Each structure stands twice: as structure tokens, then as C-alpha cells.
């Protein structure tokens, strides 16, 4: 008997605003503990929340990017439970009238983990439906000490967007792909940096298993507070495995809230949050409803960017790139914009793409400091290479200098004496020299060992200090060796 998993995700994303959701304190990561607080986000008696317009716009924008419906009226509700990291002992969230309803995310191949990109699940172009997207306030951060816990409330009240999917996912890899796709889109919309280290994406997952082909859902378990995409994959793998083992040995899954211990690679039942399931939601009387039509929706619509998939196909089509090249270049708007600027100042966009993907990205990654080469120089350099005036090794050399001190690549090549020798007469002299200096290789070649020509090529390259056009040498040598 085979089992399948049914997975739904609740994805919490920290929005990129200057200030918190309901007060003017800074929304800043990494500040000294308890340094960005006011009566509102500290839950002092008498303080009142006032919603941050920018957070509302960013949430609507996310909905528009993900194809959600934006209802004309949304409201905030109080979700009641006691927890020491929550200053008011209720969280202002949205219950039955969220800012966005429905929508969906299509999972592209490259969003899957590398080792799964050849599998059928990655090639299926599956669409995962969303239930809703709502806006809520985050809680503080607790540190568990020996005999007590310490709390930093800086994060309390910062805007958190919760994206809830339908239980449309069936594998840990799909969950992984959903999260990487979402991350890309959110970065495109500039609504979040989705920095895992800063806890800007946190995820709760619901999992159940059932016999493949059956309709009824099994009992689900929830894993809370996963803070990296790979932890989601690992914990799901583990949880699905253990549920299948349980069910197939005749046991029953008990509904439970779990937490994931990444170091030990196992799920552990949580003790505290369980008794708090009676949240007593009710409309927050401190807050007016939000009317989305008009300014809010218009501003969000104005900010909708070209989305990753659209950009990918446009790049492939416009510049004649492979799907792979287009996907990598479209992985972030800054890279794609850079490429497009460089491509516009070049005659050969494919060469620009090669130079960008093969050399520029690697150099940029290796550099300890942020580097930037003006895009028009990169375009020019790509032309030098594709015209045969520099070989690819020389191209890399120029690029390395370009990164240090941006100057026109032609200038750098001239100063460094870098120019590919393609002049037949000059090259012919070197080739003849090579032939007379290596009688053994010549004999081998003539005896049918075609690879022997490489030794002769190496001789010429050495003599020209690498500046010979390798293609031209090859042709010349073949010609000369055929001479009687």
C-alpha cells in the first residue's frame, strides 16, 4: 500500500516597513534589546493602535502579485491567548475579513531543490491555491535561560503577513518549491527581504497522510515555527515518514502541535500552546475597518512589478537566451535589470548572458566588498570577446581589473597588452616554429593521433603568452601539417 501526504502551509513574512504595524516605533532587526518600544507596542494601559498604511498597501500588493481577490472591506480582530512574549495577551490579527482572499502560486522547475529538479513533481508546473493573506502584529522574542526566560519586545508589533495555502501540497519538495517561489515574488514586490537569518520568513505546516487515491483526510499534526526553507523540507520528510510508519502498523495519528529540533532531526510535541486553542476572536473595537477600494488598492496596483515568470519568458524571448539562463537572470530584479542594461549596450546579448552568469556572478560572489561594474562596460567587454578580439581567458582577466577600477574594457586590454593575435601571418610563423621544434608530436599526428596537435597548440600559446586565437592556431596547424 502506498501513502500520500497532504500538506498545507501558513507562511509568516516580515514586511519591509520603516515602522511597526500599529505604532511609530522603528521596525529594525538587531537593535539593542527593548530599545524600540512605546506605550502602544509595550501594551501599556491606555495605549491605542493606529494602523500603518504602508503595511496595508504591501499586503494588498502581495495579494495582487499572487492573484488574490481584494475584498472592499477588511477588519482587524483580536486573537486572545496568554503568552509572555505578547504584550497585550491578545494579538491583533484578521479573522473573517482578511485583506486578501484566494490566489495561487505556480511552482517552476528551478524552484525545486537541485536534487529533485529532474523528477516528475518538479516538471508538473503545479498550481498551489491560497486560502487567504492577512496582516497581523508579530510578538517579542524570548530567550530561554536556566531558571527563567528573558524577553526582548523590539519585534513585538512589527508587521507580519500570513499567507495560508490550501492543503494542495503532497511532498516536502513541493513545500520547498512553494517557499522559494514565494520568496522570489515577495522580493520582486519589495515587500520583504525574506532574510531567513533575521527570521523574516517563518512557517507553520499541517501534515496528514492517507492511502494514495483516497479522498478523506487523515488526522493532521502541526509543526510550528520553522524558520528556514530547508528545515521545512527536512521536518516534513521526517514527519511524513513517521506518520506513515504509525498508520501502516495499525496505529492512529493523534492531533498534536509539534516543534522541530533541527539539530536532532526530530519533531517534539509542544506543551504550552496546546491549551490555548479557544482564541475567542472578536473585532478589535480600537480599530476602524479598512476600505481597500480607492487609494490603497490603486497604490498597491501601481507597485505591481513584472513577476519572475513573466520576466523569465520575456528575457528568453527578447535576448534569445536558454530557459536556464533566463531563469537565473530573472532570480532577482536587480540582476535582471543589470543584465538588460548591459545587453542593450552590446551587439551580442547571449555573450553578455554568458559573461554575466559564468564570470561576473562568480567574481562578485568571491569579492569581500560589494562590487559593481557599469553595465555598459560589461556589454562592451562581451563584444570584445564575441568579436574574437579577446579570448575568454583574457575576457575574465579584463573583468577582474574592471571590478577593481571601472574603466572602458578596451583601455584595459590595450594597457595590459591584451589582444588576441588573429593575424594569420604572425601566427603562421609561430606555428612553423612549433612544428620544427616538436618532431615527435608531428610524427604522432601524421600517424593518426589527432590529439597530438594539442602539444603544438600549447607551444604556440606559450610563445604568444596566451594571446593567440586558439581557433585560428588550430586551423593553421592543421593546414601546415597537411603540407607535404
Amino acid at each position, binding site marked *: 500500500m502506498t501513502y500520500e501526504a497532504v500538506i498545507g502551509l501558513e507562511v509568516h513574512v516580515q514586511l519591509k516597513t520603516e515602522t511597526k504595524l500599529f505604532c511609530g516605533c522603528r521596525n529594525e532587526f538587531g537593535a539593542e*534589546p*527593548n*530599545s*524600540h518600544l*512605546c506605550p502602544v507596542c509595550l501594551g501599556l494601559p491606555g495605549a491605542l493602535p*493606529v494602523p500603518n498604511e504602508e503595511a496595508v498597501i504591501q499586503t494588498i500588493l502581495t495579494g495582487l502579485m499572487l492573484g488574490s481577490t481584494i475584498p472592499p472591506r477588511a477588519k482587524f480582530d483580536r486573537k486572545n491567548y496568554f503568552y509572555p512574549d505578547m504584550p497585550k495577551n491578545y494579538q491583533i490579527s484578521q479573522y473573517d475579513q482578511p485583506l486578501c482572499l484566494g490566489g495561487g502560486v505556480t511552482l517552476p522547475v528551478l524552484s525545486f531543490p537541485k536534487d529533485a529538479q529532474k523528477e516528475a513533481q518538479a516538471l508538473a508546473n503545479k498550481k498551489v491555491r491560497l486560502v487567504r493573506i492577512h496582516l497581523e502584529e508579530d510578538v517579542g522574542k524570548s530567550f530561554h535561560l536556566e531558571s527563567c526566560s528573558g*524577553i526582548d519586545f523590539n519585534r513585538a508589533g512589527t508587521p507580519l503577513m500570513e499567507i495560508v495555502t490550501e492543503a494542495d501540497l503532497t511532498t516536502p519538495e513541493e513545500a520547498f518549491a512553494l517557499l522559494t517561489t514565494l520568496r522570489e515574488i515577495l522580493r520582486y514586490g519589495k515587500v520583504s527581504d525574506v532574510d531567513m537569518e533575521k527570521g523574516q520568513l517563518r512557517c507553520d505546516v499541517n501534515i496528514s497522510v492517507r492511502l494514495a487515491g483516497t479522498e478523506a483526510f487523515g488526522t493532521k499534526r502541526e509543526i510550528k515555527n520553522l524558520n528556514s526553507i530547508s528545515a521545512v523540507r527536512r521536518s516534513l520528510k521526517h514527519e511524513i515518514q513517521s506518520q506513515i510508519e504509525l498508520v501502516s502498523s495499525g496505529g492512529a495519528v493523534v492531533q498534536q502541535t509539534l516543534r522541530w529540533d533541527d539539530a536532532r532531526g526530530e519533531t517534539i510535541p*509542544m506543551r504550552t500552546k496546546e491549551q490555548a486553542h479557544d482564541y475567542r476572536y472578536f473585532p478589535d473595537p480600537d480599530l476602524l475597518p479598512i476600505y481597500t477600494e480607492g487609494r490603497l488598492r490603486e497604490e498597491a496596483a501601481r507597485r505591481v512589478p513584472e513577476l519572475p515568470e513573466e520576466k523569465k519568458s520575456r528575457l528568453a524571448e527578447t535576448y534569445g537566451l536558454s530557459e536556464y539562463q533566463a531563469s537565473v537572470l530573472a532570480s532577482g530584479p536587480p540582476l535582471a535589470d543589470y543584465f538588460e542594461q548591459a545587453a542593450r549596450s552590446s551587439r551580442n546579448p547571449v555573450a553578455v548572458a554568458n559573461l554575466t552568469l559564468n564570470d561576473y556572478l562568480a567574481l562578485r560572489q568571491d569579492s569581500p566588498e560589494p562590487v559593481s561594474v557599469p553595465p555598459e562596460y560589461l556589454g562592451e567587454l562581451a563584444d570584445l570577446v564575441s568579436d574574437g578580439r579577446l579570448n575568454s581567458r583574457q575576457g575574465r582577466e579584463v573583468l577582474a581589473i574592471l571590478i577593481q577600477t571601472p574603466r572602458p574594457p578596451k583601455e584595459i586590454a590595450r594597457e595590459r597588452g591584451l589582444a588576441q593575435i588573429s593575424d594569420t601571418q604572425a601566427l603562421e610563423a609561430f606555428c612553423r616554429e612549433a612544428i620544427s621544434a616538436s618532431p615527435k608530436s608531428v610524427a604522432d599526428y601524421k600517424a593518426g593521433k589527432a590529439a597530438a596537435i594539442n602539444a603544438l597548440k600549447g607551444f604556440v600559446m606559450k610563445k604568444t603568452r596566451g594571446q593567440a586565437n586558439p581557433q585560428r592556431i588550430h586551423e593553421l596547424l592543421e593546414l601546415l601539417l597537411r603540407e607535404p
Partner: protein
Amino acid sequence: MAKRAFPLLPETGAFRYGYFVPTVAIDVAYVAELARFRLSPEEIETFGSQLEQVLAYVKKLEEVEVREVALIGEEESFQNRLRPDRPLPELTRSEVLENAPQKADGLFLVPRILE
């Protein structure tokens, strides 16, 4: 998940309010747990009977026809009152921590949180 004790038992009185006050049973212990009160058995007893009286009284509300009532106020202006995303003055760290019953290293100390 274990089912919670049902906090409200059905009315024991068969008559409408006005003739006979129905008794409404409330599971005070469950509600007290939600509200984080540690009540003594005597308090549970007293509060229970007082709240049952009040609940029997509020049953009156069932007499009102409310099917047509929409909760959106007619004087609502459909205008948003939102705040621009600009920083406002914050409290100093000493003001923040001044009231803390227990603190150390700039953190509020609370009894250990179980995960």
C-alpha cells in the same frame, strides 16, 4: 484532542423567560482557565451561581428579532484613518524597563516559558 467539558448545559426550564427563569450552567473552571485565574472551589461556586443569574437574565436578548441587522454602522464614513509609515518618538530603555517586576541585561525576566 480530548474534548473539553461542555461549558453550557441546555436550559433546564421549559418555559420562556418571564414565567420561569431558566437556569444556565456555566463551566466556571474552564472559563477561569482561559482567563488565567486560579480560583478556589468556593469562588468557583459563588461566581458560578452569580454568573448563571446574569446569563439567565441576558437570555432576554433572544426575544429581539435580529435577523435583518447588519453590524456595519450607517454613519460609517468609509474613510480610512491610517498612519503614514514615519517614525515617532519612542520610550527610552530605562523608561521601558522601569516598571519591569524583574529584569536583567536589558531583558524582561519572566518565569521560564515551556516550549
